[in-house]
């Protein structure tokens, strides 16, 4: 039931949220045109396609826009049901579990990670890092329960929750590098540490996961820009 119509994705290489639909499309074997946004200047197409939030990623399928990374991932799963593996689990309770942890990652864990850069002073920084570590510990526990010994949250193949969390690995590594800490510590979160290696090596992920060094350079660039001209984003 592959839908007719070309597929475009408006995004930017450093964005973890943009990576999510890219992986979903790769899993489904769907070809798409990647429209790279320039940092600091939103294109007319983006503003027209996502007037509500004006954010990337935006999927354009036969010119119809779909916005919000996890909404897009579910759309890709719904629109190409017979191509590639199912991205969401088939059982309603497993689906609810995957959605719960994806929401936790977006609403609690990711903000705790960006909180590290915002923290002023040593104590605040340590508290912020502890929060991220705590979150990882919860996710380690969840991984054990959900994967049931299989390589991914989704089972044998990369699924919804793998995509939700995996896309943040690049920025997690940058955070580790810039703060001289190991958060994805094999000693503390062994399940997740090994899962991360498998995720990054997966065919659907390899080509779209940015190199940590390149991301770190980019992070320095945006931090410098914000320090130079502190305007509301």
């Amino acid at each position, binding site marked *: 039931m592959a839908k007719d119509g070309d597929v475009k994705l408006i995004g930017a290489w450093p964005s973890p949220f943009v990576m999510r639909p890219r992986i979903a499309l790769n899993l489904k074997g769907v070809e798409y045109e990647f429209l790279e946004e320039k940092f600091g200047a939103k294109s007319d197409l983006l503003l027209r396609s996502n007037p509500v939030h004006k954010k990337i990623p935006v999927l354009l*399928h036969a010119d119809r826009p*779909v916005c919000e990374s996890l909404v897009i991932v579910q759309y890709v799963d*719904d629109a190409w049901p017979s191509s590639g593996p199912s991205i969401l689990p088939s059982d*309603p*309770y497993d689906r609810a579990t995957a959605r*719960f942890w994806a929401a936790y990652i977006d609403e609690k864990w990711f903000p705790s990670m960006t909180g590290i850069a915002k923290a002023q002073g040593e104590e605040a920084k340590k508290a912020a890092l502890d929060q991220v570590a705590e979150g990882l510990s919860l996710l380690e526990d969840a991984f054990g329960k959900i994967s049931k010994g299989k390589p991914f949250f989704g089972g044998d193949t990369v699924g919804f929750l793998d995509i939700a969390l995996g896309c943040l690995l690049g920025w997690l590594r940058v955070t580790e590098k810039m703060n001289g800490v190991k958060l994805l510590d094999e000693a503390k979160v062994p399940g997740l540490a090994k899962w991360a290696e498998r995720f990054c090596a997966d065919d659907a992920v390899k080509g779209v996961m940015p190199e940590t060094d390149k991301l770190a350079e980019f992070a320095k660039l945006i931090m410098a820009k914000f320090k130079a001209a502190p305007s509301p984003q």
Partner: protein
Amino acid sequence: MAGKVILLDFWPSMFGMRCRIALALKGIQYEYKEEDLRNKSDLLLQMNPIHKKIPVLVHDGKPVCESLIILHYIDETWPDKCPLLPSDPYQRAQARFWADYVDKKFYDLGRKVWTTKGEEQEMGKKELIGSIKLLEGELGDKPFFGGEKLGFVDIALVPFTTWFHAYEVCGSFSIEAQCPKLMAWTKRCLEIECVSKSLADPHKVCDFVLQLKKALGIE
């Protein structure tokens, strides 16, 4: 599909109301358990240890948390009666987008209106009206966001209307006067029994909010 259903809830919660509507539309028998949020039950803390929040749907002893996730779960577990999401993938994506929009905006904007004053409150009022107008635009000429029948976005949004009276009293403004289209949509929703019996009384909500303001020391 079989198995006991319990809803851990709190009567004025918009998020809880969403679940009540969905369960009613699907004709699912369930036990409603009222939580005292100042004294959370062991069951709630056990079923939602991460967030410790209501609503929680407990089906056969297994918890489902987060209202929109609960709506998806209800729709997928009891698919035969009254589908909440459309079948077309693009329409589903649009429904999910707008329900997510309601979650990202309404609660915080409403909270701004009833907990702040002065310039901050004025901004909150303006943004809330702006948000409602955006939703009115999305509704267009359709009777419901779901089209001819109530759908996912309708269920996500209509509980917030029970708090409008409280916002109006706290903010000294009229949402009804500025957003007649949404008011008309609210009336249509209330004509559906599954909706009206699931929603809290706006006057009771207002009393609750005013009491809460006093208790929190907000003037």
